[in-house]
Every structure is written in structure tokens, then in C-alpha cells.
């Protein structure tokens, strides 16, 4: 299959007053067209930085990013991004937010009336799929967090991007809303055939959504392991309870724990409990 995203020998170094940090080191990753890849890892492993480099919002220090064989160094309409929050335009209605990318074209007088009509049809369809039709004229701050993220996803999908990059998009949502969003995003990927790279710290989310889970390790940020997900394309919530799912979750959690360098200090906890008992 065609490679949509190819990262080769990718590295990123941040230079600050405190010194230099190797955020990413020697990242090699290829994502095929239509694949759903999820990135997990302990904090500071550079997963968000990696996503931002693919988006073109940040520059790598070394190595290459190829999108459909072309080297990129800036953001482009082929790669849409959904951020965790604060990215919607509060002064525009839901519909106007979704049509923002279209507005850029009309702004430049680059679209014909047929284009505008087709775009309007697509915006309506996206609203319907997202369950947003009844709030098309509402402002983002009138919506719940879950609804706002639906708008952000619809807006990102509007220009039919080849690639959708998502940076912890459901991190601020409650568990129930998140489950609904998971099924929605799986469904959208199926009908749009969008390649998705998804950053999260939630291992269950990473397995449930992805075809492949990439575990990153911190200091220096690098790929620790890649885990193909042994589930069918059709996903249902009870798959989270099958043994394969649970085994995989355990393996990945162990990898993250091992690479994070942070461990629960049981000895210390035991001592604290003892002291508390003495004081009481």
C-alpha cells in the first residue's frame, strides 16, 4: 500500500536556557494510506511534538517528513489538525466555523458558484453526521465540550484532508462522551478513508481506535515499540473486555511504565502509612 506519511531519521532538539533537550531522536515511522495510528507514551516522550512536526507547525532539527512522497516544512490543507481545545473561533457560529476553510477560498476569489454549492452540501452532511444540525447557528461557547470537539472535527474534515492529526482531542471530555466520540471517529474514518494519527495518554483509547499503537519513550523521545491491534475493523465497545484487548493493554501499560522512569514507591507508601498510624 501507498505510504502517506514517512518519517525518516527524524530528530528534534529544543535549546533553552537550562540546556538542550532531545525531544525526539531518530524516529522512523511509515503510515499507510487509510491507516489509524495512535501514539502513546509517558509525559515528555515528544508525542505531541511529533504530531506538530507532521502538521508542519514545528520544524524538525534533523531528518525528513514525507507526505505522499513530498517533503514538507509548513502546514497545508492536506493535513488537518484537531487540537485539545481553544481552537474554535468563538465569534463564528458552528456553521461558519465549519466553513472557515471554504471562506479562505472565497476570500481569494478562487471558487466558482458550483464549488460553493458543493461545499455547502458537504458542510450540511458533516453537520448531520456529527449530530450538530440543530446547533448550526449556535456559537461554540453555547455548546458542551463534546459538542465543541465535534465542531472542531467537522471543521478539520471540511476540506477533505488526506491526513487527520489529532492531539489528545478527547482529553478534556468525560468518559461517556468520549466513548461516543470514539465510535464517531471510527465511523468517519471508514467513510472518508482519512489517514489518522492520534496522540493520547489513554492506552484503552489508543487500542480501541488504532490499527497500530506506537509507544514512545521519553528522554530522549524515541519509538519504544509498535503494537498491531488484533481487532477487526468493525469495533464495538464490548471489545474492550475481550482477552486480546486486555492483554494488549497490559503489555502497553508495562512498556510505558518501564520507560517513564516513574514508579510507585511502595516502600515509601508503607512507611507513610506506619507513621500515620503512630501519630493517630
Amino acid at each position, binding site marked *: 500500500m501507498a505510504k502517506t506519511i514517512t518519517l525518516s531519521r527524524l530528530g528534534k532538539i529544543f535549546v533553552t536556557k537550562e540546556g538542550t533537550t532531545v525531544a525526539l531522536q531518530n524516529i522512523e515511522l511509515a503510515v499507510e494510506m487509510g491507516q489509524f495510528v495512535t501514539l502513546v507514551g509517558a509525559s515528555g516522550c515528544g508525542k505531541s511534538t511529533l504530531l506538530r512536526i507532521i*502538521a*508542519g*507547525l514545528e520544524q524538525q532539527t534533523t531528518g525528513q517528513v514525507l507526505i505522499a512522497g513530498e517533503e514538507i516544512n*509548513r*502546514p*497545508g*490543507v492536506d*493535513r*488537518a*489538525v484537531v*487540537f485539545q*481545545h*481553544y*481552537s*474554535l*473561533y*468563538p*465569534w463564528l457560529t458552528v456553521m461558519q466555523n465549519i466553513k*472557515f*476553510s471554504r*471562506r*479562505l477560498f472565497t*476570500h481569494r476569489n478562487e471558487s466558482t458558484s458550483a464549488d460553493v454549492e458543493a461545499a455547502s452540501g458537504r458542510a450540511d452532511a458533516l453537520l448531520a453526521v456529527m449530530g450538530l444540525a440543530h446547533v448550526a447557528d449556535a*456559537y*461554540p*461557547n*453555547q455548546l458542551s465540550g463534546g459538542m465543541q470537539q465535534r465542531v472542531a472535527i467537522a*471543521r*478539520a474534515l471540511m*476540506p477533505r484532508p488526506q491526513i487527520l492529526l489529532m492531539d489528545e482531542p478527547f482529553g478534556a471530555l468525560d468518559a461517556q462522551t468520549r466513548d461516543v466520540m470514539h465510535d464517531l471517529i471510527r465511523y468517519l474514518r471508514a467513510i472518508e478513508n482519512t489517514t489518522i494519527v492520534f496522540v493520547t495518554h489513554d492506552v484503552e483509547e489508543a487500542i480501541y481506535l488504532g490499527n497500530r499503537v506506537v509507544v514512545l519513550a521519553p528522554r530522549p523521545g524515541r519509538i519504544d515499540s509498535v503494537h498491531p491491534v488484533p481487532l477487526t475493523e468493525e469495533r464495538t465497545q464490548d471489545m474492550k473486555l475481550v482477552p486480546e484487548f486486555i492483554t494488549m493493554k497490559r503489555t502497553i501499560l508495562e512498556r510505558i511504565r518501564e520507560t517513564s522512569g516513574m514508579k510507585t514507591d511502595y516502600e515509601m507508601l508503607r512507611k507513610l502509612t506506619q507513621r500515620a498510624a503512630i501519630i493517630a
Partner: protein
Amino acid sequence: MIPTKPTLAKSEVKGSVRQMSVWRIRGGLSRGQYWTFAIAGLLLPVLTWWLASSTGWVDKVFLPSPKDVTVRIWTWLQNDHLLNDIWISTYRVTAGWLLSALIALPLGLLIGTYRPIQAWFEPLMDFIRYMPAVAFIPLVMIWVGIDESSKIAIIFIGTFFQMVLMMAEDVRRVPMQQIEAAQTMGANRSEILSLVVLQSAKPALLDTLRVTMGWAWTYLVVAELVAANSGLGYAILKAQRFLQTDKIFAGILLIGAIGLAMDQGFRWLHRRSFPWLYSR
């Protein structure tokens, strides 16, 4: 399990409805309560003033009574071209403020957006804004002359440098995510400035315009020190020479009233222009 609807006995309901104290931290206030406090706050000083002056407790020369001031405003209107004074002062203030706004807006937008422009202008503006506007009067008279433009120039000097810095800060507060979202949707630099940064900062910019209009009024008396022969500030200065305290009071109160009216006008415009901020 059959879900049951919880029911409450009437006495329980009655007992549970408790009046919340208005003195809670960040507590609420009903409309009626708000106006009670607001009117009391406005009337109490007037009442004290009236008592202090009418009982002869303070000499009329130092403190004219509210009645004296009202009569003075009336005779001023009848015989001394009050409307002309109001008009010329409003014109001077508005012109100086508008001139500031016309330059401060684009400059503030650029300072808040581009670091080199910030580095170039901000220390300079910071330096100049500490210089006393009053001290520029002799210079302004030499450079600009003694006609209308000199008064406008003083008000400009008093407001411009503060205004630029505040507007730059308004622009800097636009969330980076909003800008990055536009980049990933293919917006170029000028589109980001006009369709995102400016739109996002607009409510804060209008607030800055409102606040600086207040400051422009405070420079009026200073501006009318410069060879003026009309205007509210000039009238106050002249009244001082003849110990007409009632006229001084009248002038000050009129400036306050005009300022309050303009402030309310700005607030009204804010609510009208940015409905998304007021719809929740």
C-alpha cells in the same frame, strides 16, 4: 432495576429553599438588589454634599450647594454658550482619541504579532509613556501652534502611547491554537491577521478604546490650558480665576456625565457587536 423518581415532602422543599447571602465571595445579585446598591452609592455623596453645603457647615465659596450648581448650569446654558463649550471639548477629545486609535490599531496589531516589530517599538513606547503629557505643552505650542490642532496634539500625546501598548497586549492574548488552526486550514499570513487575529482580539480592542476614551477626557483640562477661549476645561480654568466654585463644580460634573454617557455607549456597542460573548 426500575428507576424511581425521588419525591420530596412539601415541608422538606420549603426547608431546602434557602436565601443565598449576597456577601458570598463572587456571589450573585438580583437586578433589584443591584440597582438598590448602585443608586444608594450615587445618592449618598450627593446627599452628603447637599447637607454639608445647605447647613452652612462649609462656606459657599469652597462648597457651593447642589442648587447653586444646577442654577449655574442653567445660566451657563442660557447666557454663556454651554452647548458650544460641550461641543468644542467633545470635538477635541474625540479627535485626539480617534487620531491615536487610527495609528495605534495597526501598530498594535503588528507589535502583538511580529516579535521584531515588538522589539523595535515596545521599549520606545514604554519610555515615552512615562513622560508627562503636560510637560509637552510648551513644545506643542512651538511645534504645532496655538490653534485647534495643538489641543488635539496634547490629547493625542496623553493617550496614544498607552493605547498602543494595550492594543498590542490585546492582540498577543489571541490563543495560539486559533492561529495554528487557521494555518492548517491553509490561511496565509494576511488572512490570519485579518480573519483570525483581528476578529479574535476585537472585543478586547473595543474595551481598550473605551478605557482610553476615559483617559482622553482627563487630558482635556490640560489641553485647554493652551491658548483656548472655549471649552469645558477652559471654563473650569477661567472660573478658578474668579473663584466661581459653582462653575468649577458644574464643569467637572458635566465632564463626568459626558464620560459616563460615552462609556455606556461603548458598552452598548460591545453587547451589540459581540453577541457570542453575551449568549450562554
